[in-house]
């Protein structure tokens, strides 16, 4: 039965769903890259995703509009980001702990709202696949890359866009400086608090979209705790990708491919215990982090609140 894995159809299937499954990782991890580049560790990504996930699904379910659903996820993510920014920038709270707080809030709140407002698992019609004339018809390639929905395309477009903003714009320069030496940035008139507010809220918005991509584009349902650790893997991917959007893309693809593989292993009924198969992406997270930890250097000011007077 193992040989079934290597048939062309199955390989294309694995790759296509791998490309698709990288979407939530990409949105969340690129957002996290921005906030970490500016010196803020946001461990609340998972919670932001869960709320985004629910908001998108519920609004879509009740109004029938996918775009309103997406907008709701963006708004919820931005609000969560705003709260996180206030806690870490103004109140200078310890970032790791407050991030876990935001995660638990998102976990509990999304479940509570789900119980109150819906109660049962429903489904919606998610974002449709977009057919690109010509490209979608290429055998194999078309199926893998050009037969996806708009949120998937958006996630991949985000990678070069993030690289461009970080490296070619004055805003990107400010973000990098604030994450490395906020005192220097401050002495040159850069508003450190404003830059961090921007990146944290942007991170929140992208986490919200990451959640929406699950509930109204990929799986098209909402269940309690449906992100199941995906947001934490996204944080790990930022370390894995060495705070570089392209590195993050590589990490996201690695994990989504492994995930896709294990899903297909189960679908094909290959005799590997499903518990072990499901574990694979998480085991990989730990192995990869152990292997990469000494190679990369985090932004110097990461997790350090900024205060002008020493």
């Amino acid at each position, binding site marked *: 039965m193992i040989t079934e894995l290597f048939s062309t159809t199955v390989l294309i299937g694995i790759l296509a769903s791998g490309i698709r499954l990288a979407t939530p990782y990409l949105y969340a991890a690129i957002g996290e890259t921005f906030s970490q580049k500016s010196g803020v560790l946001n461990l609340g990504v998972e919670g932001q995703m869960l709320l985004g996930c629910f908001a998108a699904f519920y609004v879509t379910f009740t109004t029938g509009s996918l775009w309103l659903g997406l907008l709701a996820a963006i708004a919820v993510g931005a609000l969560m980001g705003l709260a996180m920014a206030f806690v870490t920038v103004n109140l200078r709270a310890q970032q790791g702990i407050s991030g876990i707080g935001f995660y638990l809030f998102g976990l509990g709140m999304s479940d509570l709202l789900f119980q109150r407002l819906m109660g049962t698992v429903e489904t919606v019609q998610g974002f449709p696949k977009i057919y690109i004339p010509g490209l979608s018809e290429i055998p194999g390639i078309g199926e893998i890359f050009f037969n996806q929905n708009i949120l998937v395309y958006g996630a991949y477009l985000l990678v070069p866009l993030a690289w461009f903003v970080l490296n070619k*714009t*004055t805003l990107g*320069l400010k973000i*990098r400086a604030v994450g*490395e*030496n906020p005192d220097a940035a*401050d*002495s040159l*008139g*850069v508003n450190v608090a404003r830059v961090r507010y921007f990146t944290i809220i942007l991170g929140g918005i992208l986490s919200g979209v990451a959640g929406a991509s699950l509930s109204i584009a990929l799986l098209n349902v909402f269940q309690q705790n449906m992100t199941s650790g995906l947001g934490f893997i996204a944080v790990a991917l930022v370390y894995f990708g060495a705070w570089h959007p392209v590195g993050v893309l590589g990490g996201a693809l690695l994990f989504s491919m492994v995930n896709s593989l294990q899903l297909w292993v189960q679908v094909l009924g290959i005799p590997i215990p499903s518990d072990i198969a499901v574990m694979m992406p998480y085991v990989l997270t730990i192995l990869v982090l152990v292997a990469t930890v000494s190679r990369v250097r985090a932004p110097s000011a990461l997790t350090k609140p900024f205060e002008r007077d020493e």
Partner: protein
Amino acid sequence: MTESNLLPSGQKRIDSLEMRGITKRFPGVLASDHVNFDVKSGEVHALLGENGAGKSTLMKILYGLYHPDEGTVLLNGEPVTISSPTDSINLGIGMIHQHFMLVPTLTVAENVALGLPSSRGALTDLDKVSNRILELAKIYGLKIDPDAYVWQLSVGQQQRVEIIKALYRGAALLILDEPTAVLTPQEVDELFVIMRQMVRDGHALIFISHKLHEVVEICNRVTVLRNGRTIGTRPTAETTKQALANWMVGREVGFAPDRGETKLGEVRLSLDNVQCGSDRGTPGLRGVSFDVCSGEILGFAGVSGNGQRELAESITGLRKVTSGKVYLEGQDITNMSPGDIMERMLSYIPEERMRDGMIKDFTVAENMILREHQKQPYSKNGFLNLRGIASHADELIQKFRVKTPSRETMAKNLSGGNIQKIVLAREISRNPRAILAAQPTRGLDIGATEYVREQLIEQRNKGAAVMLISEDLDEILALSDRIAVIYEGQIMDIITRENATPEKLGLLMAGVRSEDATPVVK
């Protein structure tokens, strides 16, 4: 005469700047008490004072980082309000901070462009910035590569980036906060050349320092601050080093402690071709060998980051020695645990006294027994003997003249000088066979510095072998019997006190081996 109003950078000059009656209160402290200060175009005005005299506070007010409670700032005779660094930059005031305000992971051009509007809107215009940097570099004779990353640059080059950064922003008046603290003597000379040219061109410079010979050498006028008050302003031509020192401290001070004769004894500590890594994974020490004898002070001169930290840590067991041997009184102590090494009566006064020398949130008494807390009379069978600890603390507080409200005061609430006295008391009162002192007077005021130096000399006279690692060349020259110069993890040379001059040491510190100096043989 509009021509003469402009500086070579194309900016307008600041003819005069005056700070009048500046008062700044912090909770419980009067940091500035009606301070008056002024500087004119074409002069270097020194601001001199001990730590805590109010120099930094005054300059932070001028740069817009602090807001004064009282007083006015007049620019060319007109009152101005400076409420942020942006305001002061717009007025043509620039500041070279003591700890450089640079982002190491960015290039020179990116550091310069940071925070400025770009000619391309939201996109950076680094090519344009680079061209302007090269233009300014040419006018002011500052060699700089705009595309180099700041972490690749030497300290002297980083300082040039800071100067360029200020000039780029149109600085007509520059505040230089202890600019020579981290430079070699040659780099100091280079800086002074640049400063003289800037002054000739019509810039106004404020020079903050506590190195008196530099103040006398480079400055036109000097203002002395003490306890937040202006003591007075004088032309430097009418004063001397000694007069300035007395003026600054408010009493007679001695510069060179009386050293007495050198009575060399047996070899106490020796290193044989010691190598170790640095925190960055690069080689930290590359084969260091030397002997220190009973009754001498061996000074280690060098620019910061050339292996001093690694040297101290490999001797004290805090860093793994990868090859070579360390001997204390003939015993091999290489890679022993720090505890075992200290047990053999090596005392250590670490560079980061607040981090490695003591525990901030422990009391004075507790800090004094950190080293020997498991011994009688401080503890028995694992229980602390509070009475023994208290009497030991009282004794040391008195003997080492530690100014503290009580032995139960948290160490963090004491001044830097008194904190160093606690470390010194703990390390010296056990009559060590060898002492390793790293930057023992850094950041201390003149009084405390004097005291620490006297204690080191006294230990030497009592027969201890003393190693003194310092970036302050004056200190090395004043205390050492022999001077080893450390450069990129190697000992360039060891010269005797009689043969040492700042010039000779400076060249060695920059990695230049002079022809007449004898090579290191061991």
